[in-house]
């Protein structure tokens, strides 16, 4: 019996849920005009599921039939999941129906590779094109691009999508060869390179006598790697992502902790990767991109190549660099303030904006930062000096939260 729309949705949303990225931010601002839909700068999370994740886009596969046998993937050909395929019109209608009810910001569309990379990519492009051209849909579209698809299809995808992404899948090429034998790291990198080149070409200022190049993926591109399916350590992962950020103008590298799919492959670890490992990697990613840390500095905090799960990496760095503290909140540079554990970029900006108006004491600082508990040992204000605290042997114990049972109750 053929599957109905609801059954297809259940199969194809289930297959897509392992992709971590669901954001709708970073696009160009748009309004509906004569059509339907808009894009805001920050994007919106329309709901949160009990895994704490934001539901922003309708994240589905076009089909979960796949020729490839990537062992970490629930849709690999040797997995015994139910299979389904949406038609282009079904995806278009589903997207518009949910969009009109204000459930989503738009569509995140990926696919198994059913016949060939080109045919699959062409189907994905057709969905985006239909939404944009036949229904004047102006909401957010994130398309996955398929490694090995032709440059022409990639170029077309960028005209309709806000964001493109192609997953590097694993941090090490050797692991990719082993776990995803049909995929080629070079094909994937070529795809990322092509998208970067197109994004840059469309961003070039128009020159006299030349038509402005059409906009291309205004929200940029991103990629994802699975953490914990191979033996790469955190240092390998962060080095790989530093290379990726430098090479392909990526908005984000997503880390997805390997988690059981219910369709295990014998060649995979039988345990899920701790979510905390994924979280620590994101923290490092942030330190590298927004806090002025260098890769060697972050690496100091991971003896043996692995991040300490019990301490966040910024605190770990501070604990081994006590000579850099305490920091005088009223005089220190932005760079130094960003190194204080517990101070985020926004709090630092607020401190810098507030300093000219009044000297900051602890009460003011509490208003600007929310909480002083973590900050205190590392700062100096006119009414506070942490000498004993900072030198104390028990500083780490004071600051590291005791392990807690994750709360399951509501």
């Amino acid at each position, binding site marked *: 019996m053929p599957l109905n*729309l609801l059954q297809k*949705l259940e199969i194809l*949303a*289930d297959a*897509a*849920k*392992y992709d971590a990225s669901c954001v709708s931010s970073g696009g160009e601002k748009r309004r*509906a*005009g*004569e*059509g339907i839909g*808009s894009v*805001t700068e920050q994007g*919106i999370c329309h*709901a*949160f*599921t*009990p*895994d*704490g*994740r934001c*539901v922003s886009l*309708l994240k589905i596969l076009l089909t979960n039939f796949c*020729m490839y*046998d990537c062992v970490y993937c629930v849709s690999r050909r*040797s997995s*015994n999941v139910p*299979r389904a395929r949406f038609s282009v019109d079904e995806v278009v209608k589903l997207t518009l*129906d*949910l969009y*009109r*009810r*204000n*459930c989503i910001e738009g569509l995140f569309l990926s696919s198994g590779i059913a016949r060939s990379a080109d045919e699959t990519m062409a189907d994905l492009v057709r969905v985006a094109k239909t939404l944009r051209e036949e229904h004047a849909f102006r909401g957010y579209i994130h398309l996955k691009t398929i490694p090995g698809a032709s440059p022409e299809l990639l170029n077309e995808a960028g005209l309709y999508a806000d964001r493109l992404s192609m997953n590097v899948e694993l941090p090490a090429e050797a692991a990719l060869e082993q776990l995803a034998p049909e995929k080629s790291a*070079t094909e994937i*990198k*070529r795809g*990322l*390179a092509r998208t970067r080149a197109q994004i840059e070409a469309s961003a070039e200022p128009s020159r006299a006598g030349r038509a402005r190049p059409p906009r291309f993926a205004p929200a940029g591109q991103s990629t994802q790697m699975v953490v914990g399916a191979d033996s790469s350590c955190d240092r390998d992962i962060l080095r790989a992502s530093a290379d990726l*950020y*430098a*090479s392909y*103008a990526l908005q984000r590298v997503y880390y997805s*902790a390997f988690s*059981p799919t*219910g369709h*295990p*492959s014998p060649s995979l670890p039988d345990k899920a990767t701790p979510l905390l490992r994924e979280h620590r990697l994101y923290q490092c990613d942030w330190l590298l991109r927004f806090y002025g840390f260098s890769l060697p500095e972050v690496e100091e905090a991971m003896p043996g190549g692995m991040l300490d799960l019990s301490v966040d990496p910024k605190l770990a760095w501070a604990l081994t660099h006590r000579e850099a503290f305490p920091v005088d909140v009223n005089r220190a540079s932005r760079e130094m303030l960003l190194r204080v554990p517990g101070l985020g970029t926004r709090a630092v900006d*607020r401190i810098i904006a*507030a300093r000219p*108006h*009044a000297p900051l*004491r602890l009460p*003011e600082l509490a*208003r600007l930062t929310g909480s002083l508990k973590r900050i205190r040992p590392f700062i100096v204000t006119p009414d506070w000096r942490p000498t004993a605290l900072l030198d104390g042997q028990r500083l780490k114990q004071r600051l590291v939260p005791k392990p807690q049972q*994750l*709360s*399951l*109750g*509501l």
Partner: protein
Amino acid sequence: MLSVPLPEDCSAEDFREAARRCLAANLSPQQVMFACGDRPSLFEETGLEVEPARLNVPRSFVTLVSKVVCHSAEDRFALLYRLLWRLRGGERGLLESPADPDAMRAALYAKAVDKDVYRMHAYVRFAEREVDGKKLFVAWHEPQHRVLRLAAPFFVDRFSNMDWLIATPVGTAAWREGVLSFGPPAARPLRQGDEVLDELWKAYYRTTFNPARLRVKAMVAQMPKRHWATMPETSLIPEMVHAAGGRVDAMQERPPDTPPRFAAAVAARIAEPPRQPEEAAPLDAIAREVQACRLCPLHGPATQPVLGEGPPHASIMFVGEQPGDQEDLAGKPFVGPAGQVFDRALAEAGIARQKAYVTNAVKHFKFEPRGKRRVHMKPSAGEVTKCRFWLEREIAAVRPKLIVALGATAMLGLTGRTVAVTKERGRVLPFQGCSILVTVHPSYLLRLPDADLAALEYRRFVEDLRVAQPWCEAA
């Protein structure tokens, strides 16, 4: 103490008007009390006939007022008037001062209102109705503050081609035939079914949840329970949470899958080696084989190997150092900034680039990541030596009459020895059955900080290339 009545649904304009009159009457914050309600205007009641005061306030205060008046706290107007009074008293920088409790409280109120607006944008759920033969999308939402007016423009921008109505306990906003209107509070409508919300949306919400990542606290922090009553999908949460542990256990215990029937057939189909086209030239074989090169670790971070380009039997071959950022992306040699200098100099020397074979000593880009950029790194002698494998095969295939080495790395790759380029440049020497000429690498010209020196060096580079020009003619 004077009581200043404000309309129930007091807008920023209403408050501004009242506050200006109070300022004109020179009423201090201690002398006035603002209260919402449908009472006659203060100034009629008190007979206080004054023109509103004109006052310049910082732009940030105007924004602050527009948000804080929407807050549900009783003291919002008193707080704003106090700030206004102090601004008029000349307290500059008041709003930015973290030491000031009034300014901080107002900032907190504004932030709470912003958040409530965002949550309205996020958590309104429209249900489709048919009213008078036309589609109408209706929603019931319960905001914490009076944010309907602030939140409505978002829905206009997004759903301008639908008719919709958002009802809340403090008023309604409606968009019909291109006109936005606000009305009095409405009673909560009876919940009627909407197939998309009740079936498809709930199914999606349930399915996109990964039970192996249960983090209930994180969900509740982002999506407070007070909004759940108006979001149909939240009725599923207790069961989703309750069943998560069991689902994970069941997944753990499941034995490995037996592959479906089609798997073997697909595997056999894609395992067939792709038919190799008859290789017309040895260069095509080299180009294919170099893709899988693992002779040194440079292939890891680089995008792809960049092999030479040009006629298969060019009489002149140029050898550079290694591909750069642009070459790595494009997979073609000398297309970046140095390539442009090279092209210009070649043209001036009378050599057509398409008649020459252009390649590099090292085939992969060596770089160091620096944030969003890649910084070129000089290949080590070991990497250059390993990569001679490919360069020698290219030379053997093309059999040029003259090889032009651009820089010391090219010389190292070609001859296996280090030479002083500046001493040996511009002279043609015999080399393994052909001739060799060495000159600088065009990127050297780009690095010279002094414009005069750069111009001089460019001339010398062109002169060196002129020495090579007759070999090109011979082709």
